[in-house]
């Protein structure tokens, strides 16, 4: 017993000396990977915060939300980074998130007024193809052509759900007809983005659902200008990726500091060439060379989070019906 007391004493002193506040951020797995923004973001924030930033990866955006729901109010997470506007309504409904204090001059194609979630990057969904192929100019054109596409399953993939929302936002009640016409263009549907993109690169399809920024990776990292994104005249659906702070965080000030850091130059300049998305606030030095070559959609489509939540199930049923035939 005596030894236990001594041991406990020693432990608590060491703990007191080594006490550096720890900020836990839950995010999707590709953010924390060695090739994502995670390592650079961690180093940059730890330089200014005098804290230990712990990034925890949990699948993708939807898995991240499921994880937070499972952990509930006892979660160790202080900040959740990596939800998008298709998930924010459900995230708010949990009541686990607190309002943020971030003020920034966003360079998003849409006005941002959400008080719970602050954006850190965004991108347009689009079909990526080889630059020498003829590009369809809209979904109807695509459906009428012989072009083969590979897409992701909305039930297991964030971009897959984005495509549902895109067709729904562009065509509303006409969406089932569009999907019926597209069904013979769909080579196959994959579980996630990686499988689909891999199939496209192997030549299994002419186009893959990805982002307008995908060709920037090939151009900048591989000096390969053979990929391009097709510009659709009905507009492109936006994905805005956001972060929020948890109400039960034991480090609320640090969480606020992180969210403000998130829209600052240091964080935002890491995003373009690690997450391959547009930064939410364009850095003073502008975007990296190569981004100017990307296609610029004339029209941005985005359902509000409530619209997205309410059409989600209908859109999925329509998609399933059309493609199950």
């Amino acid at each position, binding site marked *: 017993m005596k030894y236990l007391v001594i041991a406990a004493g020693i432990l608590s002193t060491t703990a007191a000396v080594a006490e550096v506040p720890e900020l836990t951020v839950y995010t999707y*797995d*590709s953010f*924390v*990977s*060695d*090739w*994502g923004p*995670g390592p650079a973001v961690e180093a940059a924030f730890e330089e200014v915060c005098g804290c230990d930033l712990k*990034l*925890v*990866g*949990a*699948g993708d955006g*939807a*898995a991240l*939300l*499921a994880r937070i*729901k*499972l*952990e509930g109010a*006892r979660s*160790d997470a202080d900040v959740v980074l990596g939800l998008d506007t298709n998930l924010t309504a*459900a995230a708010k409904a949990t009541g686990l998130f607190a309002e943020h204090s971030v003020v920034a001059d966003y360079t998003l194609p849409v006005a941002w007024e959400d008080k719970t979630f602050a954006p850190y990057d965004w991108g347009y969904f689009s079909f990526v193809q080889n630059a020498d192929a003829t590009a369809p100019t809209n979904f109807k054109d695509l459906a009428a052509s012989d072009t*083969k596409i590979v897409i992701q*399953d*909305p*039930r*297991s993939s964030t971009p897959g*759900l984005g495509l549902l929302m895109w067709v729904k936002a562009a065509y509303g009640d006409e969406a089932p007809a569009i999907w019926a016409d597209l069904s013979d263009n*769909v*080579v*196959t*549907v*994959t*579980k*996630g*983005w*990686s*499988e689909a*993109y*891999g*199939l496209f*690169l*192997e*030549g*299994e*399809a002419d186009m893959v659902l990805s982002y307008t920024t*995908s060709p920037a*990776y*090939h151009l900048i*990292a591989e000096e390969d200008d053979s990929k391009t994104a097709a510009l659709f005249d009905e507009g492109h659906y936006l994905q805005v990726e956001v972060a929020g702070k948890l109400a039960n965080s034991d480090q609320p000030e640090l969480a606020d500091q992180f969210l403000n850091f998130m829209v600052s130059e240091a964080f935002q300049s890491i995003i373009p060439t690690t997450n*391959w998305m547009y930064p939410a606030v364009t850095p003073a030095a502008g975007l990296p060379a190569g981004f100017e070559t990307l296609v610029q959609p004339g029209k941005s489509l985005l359902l509000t989070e409530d619209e997205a939540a309410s059409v989600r199930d209908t859109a*999925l049923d329509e*998609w*399933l019906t059309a*493609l*199950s035939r």
Partner: protein
Amino acid sequence: MADCAKPVSPRPGIGAAALVVALIFGTLTAVALRAEVGRGFGASDWAAVRFTLTQACLSAVLSVGLAIPVARALARRRFFGRRILITLLGAPFILPVIVAILGLLQVFGRAGWISSGLAMLGLEPVQIYGLHGVVLAHVFFNLPLATRLILQGWQEIPAERFRLAAQLGADSRAMWQLLERPMLTRIMPGALAVVFAICLSSFAVALTLGGGPRATTIELAIYQAFRFDFDLGRAALLSALQLVLTGTAALVALRVAAGEGFGTGLDRALQRWDGTGPIARLLDGMWIATAAIFLMLPLGAIVLSGLPGLTGLPVSVWAAALNSVLVAALSTVLLLLLALPMATAVALGRGGAIELAGILGLAASPLVIGTGLFIVIYPIADPFALALPVTALVNAVMALPFALRILVPRAQVVVGRYGRLALSLDMRGWSFVWRVLLPRMRPQIGFAAGLAAALSMGDLGVIALFADPEFATLPLQIYRLMGAYRMELASAAALLLLALSMAAFWILDRGGRWHAEA
């Protein structure tokens, strides 16, 4: 006291089985208890059940059906490279799903080797996407496993039986009727049940090769319930249904598989005198060659696409490889600790319930086990700190059904042959296990351990749910590389994984067969 007449006690085996059942049903219950009111089963769920059953039955029947002539040919022939071929047979089975899909499509896809060849002849490309594509992929994965299981059945027949049959002038046909067919009726149902169970929980393969939502399986429905609807009740219900289907298949298989073994031999090397005619040799050769080409082409594609990036692999991939080796080693030890007592208990006549518990590991959805473990562990400990042991344990439970299929027939033979002799010498407990059971089961233990190590190495498993930035396994790094557009590096990492898995399999499997005829 029935136990008095046995050289060892079945209790450790019963305990191990109870542990497995507790893990599977405990996690399932944990998920169910967390459920809020959901929407229950819908028409789409039943469609998923129908599709899952159809493809799983077709895949199981084809995999096992094709494995019989291949295994028979391999059992009858001795040729240069036979051992390497048998080891390589393990390869498709242990590949991470995403890697195997890309390998298969490089051969059979729209832009694959076969289609390109057809295009040069002015023909249409192969249509791989559809039910036939799903079945093709599942045969690719499971034909090798079924072949190994059935080949083992051939090796269970004592050499003396073949010698006697040959002395009595039995030809191939008579051999088949006297020895091979009775052996198959004992081995085949178990192999069918295992392959059926594997295909039942297929998800990414079925969806991708099936060409879209027509190919929705129960596992995908679980995934949807969990992450699209966050309906834990439905996830638990679907998972329970999957367990029931697998359990039923296993029960049927166990009932059908009952039959007498071949009695005792002197553990001599096998020699065959039948099937020496030119037609039999040609047919056997054709079966072996066809199976080898079918299995090796996609593997070749994986190797070819992996080579260019191999030198550029970053340190983090090598570190992940080391983690994977650790997980595999731990998982293999855990598996043997579970499987050996269970196999012994089955051999002692405590069959049904234990074998059933063993096969359920395959039917349990990794997503549900992982989530359930998370719910259970979260209140008492940091799940991330336990990432390694939890991943190793779940991998061991997933490998258990294969290990039991490998170990049980042999354990039955050993206990049947030597049990009474050991008792008459008053050789019980440890001394029986140590001096009689384990030495005679060495090849099977090696095979089971090799399979478990390789499976654990290649499985993404629950690590994705428990991932921690400082602890990544190789399959997780492959997914991360792909997610970051690094397809070439991902292919190279997949090649590294393939090499490591095969090396682990080779070392353990060979280790078990040292000084033994394979």
